[in-house]
């Protein structure tokens, strides 16, 4: 317990964490990753098509839809993607790291073609352009039902694995059989090539027909490239080419003072709550107050390590889980007071208070976790994923709140009862004497 709490504070104290491959942290307060609404981000404006080209409303909607899918798969929390005028897009992405990666992911048309390379002489590759002709096969990235990054089991190289739709699978089988049949000794075998936006990723001789409709592309990729490729293939190609018009950094969409104000208000609120708890539950309230401070530190540390990009929606999820953490403490203390009132000894009342309150804390929190899980599942398919951010923050918060209420509060109360304070039930409940003095005598 001490290790966890201490570790949480240490995590927050250090802005940037760098343990080899494990890098976390940012320049934001406490090193947390904050979202577009809280700190701002990159502001990109794109032109659809050539200047003067007039895209239809459907094309623009398709464009927005497609880019939204790409950005969401990149794992960017709560981007903002809007159509500007009739032929432009304005895209805002939180955070400032990986700007180039984000741009190349968004900007490329991502037309993946499967082409047949007819070889007439050797060598049959880019070094001798006269030796081959590429013929389209009609198969493209849109025929792939899934595409994901993997590694070659032998060489460990990153590869792109894909599966074709049912109709395309038989076409692909025919194609690879035909190419395989040109693979005869002494001939110049034709090749299978994959082209992305006109650039050949890989071209190779077919060593056996691929009949199952799944395959892999091995093109000397880096792991990052394969991931990007998989996202682009899965989200399909853009209906129109886009070109970047401008790129800038913008400050928080909530307005410059909002974050400070919200934090200030949150702290005032928290202070009032702690004051209320201590006034009403005396020493137990003080224990809860300390537990809540630990709780806040632990949740923020998990947010940082995960990492969770904190947006306003995420903060709302955190605040509601904070409310539930307070509630768990209130449930336990109300129960303790009841037990003291009917004359139980203090250590016993603490024990029973925790045990009896546990079922309601458990059922309440499990219900909340169910709601969070459902929201996460449905929220993740949408464009503005504030619902997902809310669900993630809520889940983490609730799990940790169960831990702090049951483990930390209990341990600290147990310690307090063990000291001379334990002889003084009034410190734990203002109503201790109403039910008789048995409690005091027993203690």
């Amino acid at each position, binding site marked *: 317990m001490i290790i966890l709490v201490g570790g949480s504070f240490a995590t927050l104290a250090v802005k940037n964490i760098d343990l080899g491959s494990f890098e976390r942290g940012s320049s934001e307060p406490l090193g947390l990753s904050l979202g577009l609404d809280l700190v*701002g981000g990159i*502001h990109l404006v794109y032109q659809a098509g050539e200047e003067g080209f007039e895209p239809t409303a459907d094309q623009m909607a398709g464009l927005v839809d497609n880019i939204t899918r790409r950005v969401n798969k990149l794992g960017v929390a709560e981007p*903002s993607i*809007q*159509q*500007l*005028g009739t032929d432009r897009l*304005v895209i805002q992405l939180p955070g400032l790291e990986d700007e180039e990666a984000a741009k190349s992911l968004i900007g490329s048309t991502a037309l993946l073609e499967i082409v047949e390379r007819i070889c007439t002489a050797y060598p049959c590759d880019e070094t001798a352009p006269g030796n081959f002709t590429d013929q389209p096969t009609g198969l493209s990235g849109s025929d792939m039902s899934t595409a994901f990054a993997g590694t070659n089991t032998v060489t460990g190289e990153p590869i792109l694995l894909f599966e074709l739709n049912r109709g395309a699978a038989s076409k692909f089988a025919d194609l690879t059989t035909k190419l395989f049949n040109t693979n005869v000794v002494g001939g110049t075998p034709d090749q299978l090539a994959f082209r992305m936006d006109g650039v050949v990723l890989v071209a190779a001789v077919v060593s056996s027909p691929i009949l199952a409709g799944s395959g892999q592309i091995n093109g000397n990729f880096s792991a990052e490239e394969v991931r990007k490729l998989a996202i682009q293939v899965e989200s399909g190609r853009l209906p129109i080419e886009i070109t970047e018009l401008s790129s*800038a*950094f*913008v*400050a928080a*969409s*909530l*307005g*410059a*003072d909002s974050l400070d*104000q*919200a934090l*200030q*208000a*949150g702290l*005032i*609120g928290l202070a*009032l*709550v702690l004051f*209320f*708890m201590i006034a*009403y539950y005396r020493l137990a309230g003080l224990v809860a107050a300390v537990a809540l401070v630990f709780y806040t530190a632990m949740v923020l540390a998990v947010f940082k390590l995960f990492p969770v990009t904190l947006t*306003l929606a995420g903060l*709302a*999820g955190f*605040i*509601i889980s904070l*409310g539930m953490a*307070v*509630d768990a403490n*209130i*449930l336990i203390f*109300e129960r303790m007071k009841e037990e003291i009132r009917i004359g139980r000894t203090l250590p016993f009342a603490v024990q029973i208070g925790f045990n009896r309150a546990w079922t*309601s804390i458990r*059922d*309440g929190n499990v*219900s*909340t976790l*169910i*709601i*969070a899980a*459902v*929201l996460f*599942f*449905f*929220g993740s*398919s*949408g*464009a*503005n994923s*504030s*619902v997902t951010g*809310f669900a993630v923050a809520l889940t983490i918060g609730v799990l940790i709140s169960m831990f702090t209420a049951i483990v930390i509060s209990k341990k600290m109360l147990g310690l307090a009862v063990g000291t001379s304070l334990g002889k003084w039930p009034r410190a734990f409940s203002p109503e201790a004497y109403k039910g008789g003095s048995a409690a005091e005598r027993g203690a």
Partner: protein
Amino acid sequence: MNVVSIRKWTFSLSAVLFIASIVTLAIPPALTAGIDFSGGAAFTMSFEDVLDPALVEKTLSDIGHPEAIVQPSVEEDGTFGKHYFIRVGELEPTIRDTDGNIEQDGGREKVEASLNALSPATVNGFDTVTGVIASENVRNAAIAVVVAALAILLYVTWAFRRVPSPFRYGTAAIVALIHDTVIVLGLFSILGKLFEFEVNAMFITGVLTVIGYSVNDTIVVFDRVRENIVRFPTLTITEIVNLSVRETVARSLNTSITLLIVVVALVMFAATSIQPLLYVLAAGVVVGTYSSIFIATLMLVVWENGEIRNVASKIPLIGPKPA
């Protein structure tokens, strides 16, 4: 304290609020969509002087655009305040005569004039923008709520399997959940119609929070009912429910008060853009606390006593007679 005796009143009150909410939601627009949903206009503006973003925001708010999203562009050296990307809700069209001269100022001219008054400015591009949130998302959120309700029904039924008729507890919990959601939506529908209160992206988050709170609060009371049923097998459901509510009311109120303290603190000090969220939370906490005692828990009594069938026929008969 005999909460069971006032069930007719609370059920009637809820029925009235629920029906009123359904009615107002049925009249379009169900909710007044803010810029996040409906889009509006976007433009970039360059001022001669460095301006405080809060001042720009306030100026726009004063001329009737509290929904404006004001984003200063950050310069290379990290300073900002001269160039802005601004989004506002839909603007009134400018009326022009046949020669293209302005006959009557539209929303655009008003926005430009008010900002020009702060510091001489140039406007680059004045375009329409679509909403950030597709209708697909709203639909997804709605589906999620329905699925969550069913999952809660199953879980609560399972968690209460040791008491007679556990299915009732699950049903009562989701009745309270639906009750809270509809009444909160109804309230904001009315606010939208009367005061042009706009809902933004945060509104969805707020409604989801209300749902989480509603179920959690209901289960605390149910948990005590479950415990008391086992402890006092001879008591009637009416006595059990009265006892359980009496035992948990301090906790229910304390939790609600703590949450309201935080919400009120935020309302007083925090920025305008999160105010809609806070109002939803405040309304949700009040409705959620009320419904867990007076709707969900009392439903157990009504169901056990077989009064459910009579509820509809009883509503018109309510008189000021103490039960």
